[in-house]
């Protein structure tokens, strides 16, 4: 029995280690590639670089407004995510915890946004933003991303909110708590796992998107990181070393953020178990 237990544990560990290697090895090679020259990427794609030279990164740092792009991306991404979370929880709470006529319809209304390629709406969106004076502005991007992220937020959070038991809510109501208090003090802490998932689900594509900035941002000082780097990398379209360095440089902030927040991430996911 204990031997069987042991072998199951070993098997499980082997499986987990295998998956870890599958995940980490490509990421390891990716980070190495950014230190190599293009010639080296071709001749020695998977080994250690001849030297850890920072040429590619220096090139990016010198030839682009990296700090500026970075700041712009932080503004746009955090603005969008905050808006998605606030508006998402509002809608999801109403849809997930209250029964009223039109609930299902409204839910589908939000959901429909998941099924549309927003790229199609490019031209009307362009005309609309122009009318609002939001072309070439971060606010315009934030609104687009928030509106685009809302459906998935509503979908994921409504699903989670529906599973929560109503005892706590009822208890609070009997204690005389207002609806707002119930939302903020009782429900919000319980939805942390869903909030974490929604943030990550939207953070990555918003941070990395270059399509909408490309179309709607023209001023150099408003460019986001992917957009700023895209034009730069366009000049090196076949120089894979610079390309890798650029892509890595753009990806690092999210990875660092994730690793720093991973404790909270895991804690957020387990928060549901507290109830």
């Amino acid at each position: 029995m204990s031997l069987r237990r042991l072998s199951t544990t070993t098997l499980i560990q082997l499986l987990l280690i295998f998956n870890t290697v599958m995940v980490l090895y490509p990421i390891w090679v990716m980070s190495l590639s950014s230190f190599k020259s293009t010639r080296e990427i071709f001749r020695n794609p998977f080994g250690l670089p001849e030297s850890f030279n920072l040429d590619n990164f220096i090139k990016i740092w010198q030839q682009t407004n990296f700090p500026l792009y970075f700041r712009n991306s932080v503004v746009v991404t955090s603005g969008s995510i905050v808006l998605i979370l606030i508006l998402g929880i509002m809608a999801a709470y109403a849809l997930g915890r209250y029964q009223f006529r039109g609930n299902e319809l409204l839910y589908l209304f939000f959901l429909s946004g998941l099924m549309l390629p927003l790229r199609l709406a490019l031209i009307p969106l362009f005309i609309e933003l122009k009318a609002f004076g939001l072309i070439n502005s971060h606010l315009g991007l934030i609104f687009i991303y928030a509106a685009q992220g809302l459906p998935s937020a509503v979908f994921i959070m409504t699903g989670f909110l529906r599973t929560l038991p109503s005892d706590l809510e009822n208890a609070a109501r009997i204690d005389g708590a207002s609806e707002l208090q119930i939302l903020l003090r009782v429900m919000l802490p319980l939805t942390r796992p869903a909030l974490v998932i929604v943030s990550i689900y939207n953070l990555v594509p918003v941070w990395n998107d270059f399509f909408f900035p490309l179309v709607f941002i023209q001023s150099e000082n408003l460019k986001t990181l992917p957009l700023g780097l895209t034009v730069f990398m366009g000049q090196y379209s076949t120089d894979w070393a610079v390309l890798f360095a650029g892509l890595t440089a753009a990806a690092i902030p999210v990875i660092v953020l994730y690793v720093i927040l991973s404790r909270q991430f895991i804690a957020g996911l387990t928060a549901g178990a507290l109830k």
Partner: protein
Amino acid sequence: MMAKSTTKRLLLITLVLSLVGFGLAQTKLTFWSWRTEDVDEYNEIIAGYEAEHPGVDIEFQAYETSTYQTVLSAALSAGEAGDIVHVRAYGNFETIADFLLPLDDQVPALADFPRLALDGERRRSDGRVYAVPFASQTLVVYYNTDIFSELGLAPPETWDEFLSTAQTIKDNGYIPLANGTATTWMNEVFMGVFGPNFYGAEFFDDIMAGEADFTDARFTGALEKLLELRPYMTPDFEGIDYATAQNLFANGLAAMFAGGSWEIANFRDLNPDLNFDLMPGPAAEAGQPQLVSWFLDGGYAVNAASPNQEEALEFVRFLATQEFGQQLTDMLQNISPIPGVVSTDPLLAKVAELNQTSTPYIMLVGFRYETPSGSVMMQERLPGMFAGEITPEQVGSEVTEGIATYFAPFQN
């Protein structure tokens, strides 16, 4: 005489503009382009123009190449695009032509441009020209001169010589031809490099006149010949994409590369130490001319919704001058169609010379105006042909059938 009066007029306009410029704010123009790799050079050229035209301030905005068409078409239909826009040629240009100003009566210099170049920016429905042609491209074979001299090889002139040269290269451990078929549009280029010498100089006109279609033995025979190159392409060529092929050649692993004249600048960027030259595709038989495929890459147009049309037109007139053409050639390594421009670069000069024996790049020049375009159909089918799944005859008849849905001469 003509030139003199133009100069006078230019001077006058400059004078008036600069006088106006004293009292008013500068006119701001934006110039949209997909040439992200040429930003510095364009800025330099523009700075020179601005020095002579103090009233205008031109901002060059480069958009990522592959999404440029999307951004441009969205912005044009919303009335927001640059005052001056870089546009492609042929069918691609026609899709946005309604939003551009006709230039043939606004830019007198166009009268001296070669007809073939103007045709690339001419709308077929009204016959008017909407853009100043900026560069032409020619499809050639590049070869690594170090490898060739190491193996004692001379540039092959006929098909048989080409094959035996490739064999020698292969025997010596190099990849003869860097190309693969994974990047779709490169397949059409590949056809454009080697095809013309088999289907011949008259074929294009015969096709356009409806006297032949793509089931013609000249065309399917040319496709058949391409298959003979398979042993000399990069091993597992099905999986070799454009970037890989470029790097194989640029890093000296492959001895030849079939591609467009735009690669000159790319190879120099990729590996400044690479010694290479270019040659036309080999002739079918000894003594025949070596034909190359030629096409217009694009042009400079004026946005019809621009609030500053006069200033934009003035700048576009500058873009049609020999002075600019020479700068374009010297600084950007492009082949300018502007008459009188001379390439000092030996490779560019060679391309310009090859253009004397050229034929239109068949599917782009002739059949990229409607869906299904000849280009898409060729690109779709060539990998299958290389993989042996369909025959050249099938390719020819399927392409003919597709084109016949909109091309009247094929319909009987």
